[in-house]
């Protein structure tokens, strides 16, 4: 088994390309490079590749990963060059590294993520941004309405426990570190909802900008050799 992971960023207009369409993009691009992708068995074989973590439509990413398997070992630097050349504007591949044989999939190892949330100035309604952020975090609970998967009902839920850190990182930007992955996940969208609710200012969700800056894994997976 030859496992590899490629690190990439997604910025600019291409952020409006959805998770599934990104998967198709990588599939097509890797095919173009001629890399011998491993295919699943069966009547409808498809290449074995997947993102470490889906990214919401409209978010940018600074350091996401896609994992894939090949039938024979590949020259990672050559593959990186070819992939970089074949990608449309907005996708920059920065590294291609082998993945250890004996670890779970990258997707199963993601535990948290770091984000930059760019907020509209009006959010603070004239208050000091630092003080606003501190007060926001100081709430006993941070309740938002979330649509439950099983019955699609809106239910109130407390997200405070899933926020690992939230602090000012610029005049109009916040640093957020939150649970991410299959075990426990917090979408920055919900944090934005909570911020809007807390602020009472007339700001809209679409005035916010989100970038996922880093994925944090539960263990080492890079094969150094």
């Amino acid at each position, binding site marked *: 088994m030859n496992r590899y992971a490629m690190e990439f960023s997604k910025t600019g207009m291409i952020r409006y*390309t959805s998770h599934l369409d990104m998967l198709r*993009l990588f599939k097509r691009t890797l*095919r173009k490079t001629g890399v011998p992708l491993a295919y699943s068995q069966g*009547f409808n074989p498809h290449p074995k590749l997947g993102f470490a973590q889906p990214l919401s439509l409209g978010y940018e990413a600074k350091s996401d990963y896609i994992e894939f398997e090949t039938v024979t070992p590949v020259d990672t630097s050559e593959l990186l060059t070819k992939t970089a050349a074949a990608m449309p504007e907005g996708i920059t591949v920065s590294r291609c590294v082998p993945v250890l044989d004996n670890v779970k999939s990258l997707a199963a190892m993601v535990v948290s993520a770091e984000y930059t949330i760019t907020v509209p100035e009006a959010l603070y309604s004239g208050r000091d941004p630092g003080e606003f952020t501190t007060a926001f975090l100081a709430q006993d609970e941070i309740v938002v309405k979330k649509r439950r998967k099983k019955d699609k009902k809106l239910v109130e839920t407390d997200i405070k426990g899933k926020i690992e850190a939230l602090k000012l990182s610029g005049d109009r930007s916040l640093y957020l570190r939150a649970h991410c992955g299959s075990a426990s996940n917090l979408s920055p969208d919900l944090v934005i909802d909570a911020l809007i609710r807390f602020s009472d200012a007339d700001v809209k969700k*679409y005035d916010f900008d989100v970038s996922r800056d880093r994925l944090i894994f539960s263990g080492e997976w890079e094969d150094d050799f």
Partner: protein
Amino acid sequence: MEKDKLNSLLRQVEKPARYTGGELNIAVKDPEKARIRFAFGFPDLYEIGMSYMGLQILYHILNKTDDIYCERVFSPAPDMAELMRKEDVPLFTLETKTALRDMDVVGFTLQYEMSFTGILDMLDLGGITLFAKERGEDEPLVIAGGPCAYNPEPLADFIDVFLIGDGEESLPDFLLKYAGAREKGMTKAEFLRSVAADTGVYVPAFYEPEYNEDGTIKSYRKLYDKAPDKVERCLIDDIENVDFPTDLIVPFIETVHDRAVVETFRGCTRGCRFCQAGMIYRPVRERKPETIRELAEKQIMSTGHEELSLLSLSTSDYSRFEELATGLMEECMEKNVSLSLPSLRLDSFSFNVLNEIQKYKKSGLTFAPEAGTQRLRDVINKGITEEDIYGAVRQAIELGWRQIKLYFMIGLPTETDEDLDGIAEIASNIVRLHRESGRGGRFNVTVSVSNFVPKAHTPFQWESQDTAAEFRRKHDYLRTRLKMKNVTFNYHDDEVSRCEAIFARGDRRCGKLLYEAFKEGCRLDGWAEHFDPEKWAKAAEKAGIDTDFYTCRKRSADEVLPWDIIDCSVLRSYFEKEREKAYGEETTRDCRYGCTGCGINRRTKCAMGGIYE
């Protein structure tokens, strides 16, 4: 356009990637360096427009020269259009996000009549004055082409110039001429006069229709004496000589057809009497098999597509089809690409091919008998017999196909209820063939019925369309007849077909109807969920248009037809002769077996004419 504003809009709409551009293989240029900036407009959603090969062909050819920058623009979906109006954001090109009103030329491809309201919507959203005669010198020139330009009159009020026929040579020529004219300081009117006599150029402003008391056209008065009496279509004699794209734009989102496509030939020799494409794209012009294979290979390399398809009016009519199909199958197998061959004639060779390429996933088999009885098929000159169908179905069942699709048209000239009974009979016979095969299992026959829309430049251009009531009666009749096990019956909405018929043969007065429909909010009328017959009825009332005049009225042979101004290079006398033969239930052979005298060889070499004689 402001980036923040665009981002804010994109965060609020469905499928924002429809509006972002930036796909693989787009043309990236400095707009300042181009002599002319052209917006290629497709008046429907991105997913539809990006599946249209003509766009890819012209985009590629236009952008080869640094003098022209061709960008794309599509109809925004209703959610985006509403936001754009609310936020005062003009419709923009995908490549550089330039407002349409700031382009030099905006061109629309006219693929189907029900997209016409989209043109008005796009002009309006793009900040361009709707009516050509009110448009200022500083506004873009608005042009149009494509099959529906063969009856340009319903759009004449809104379009400055129609380019008729093959566009690969005429469109870049025209754009460069306009660039030159503007560099010389010519006005739009001066420029239009300078190109009025060019092949394929129709300038509606140079003609004024005069009407008889009964509403029919009396004559066309020329307002500029050098404008031609008839506009001859542009025709490329040998398509091997025009460039075909291998660097297709690859959309991010899924489109209707997400695949590599090579056009194998243009035109058709079969001569079905209802078919406009079969007339206006004559003669058949083929690409060489080596060229096709090379193009396919390069496209797959450059796009990473996983599917390859061939484009023509009838795949297996390609003169060296077996050689081509065999070669492509090997190639695709090797590259892990699936091959899709639409509209195959189901002879034994095609079956072997289909069986090979659909080994595991057998899609439905499709037949288009178009009419239910041999008599009516002879009337429309559709050369398919029931034995052809049953023979193919028997074989298909043996090979494991479980889904048969049948396409028919109703409302054809001379049709009676007996012909409708024939449709039911074919369906029930196919079900019986499956039962008798003893193969059991699930089996389904889908009967899809569309409503006949008489088209300009066909032998049936003088015919009446059925009334709405008659269509409905026939639908009901068929629904009862087709109530059988394993048969699914679908039919097209008769209101849409009537609307289509108005514009298919409409005159200049229909522009008013289009304008009123646009004002009522009619958009994306080709989509069942958006088409609103009540709005159209209101629009017709406001425009003072008697729709029956255009739909269910038989034209007399000596009537001046709105599209007589366009010469499609097939003789009018041929259409008349074909119409007489239709009434006599007499067929006309495929002209590969001998010339049938349509007249196209007066203009160009007819390479396939009589090759099997």
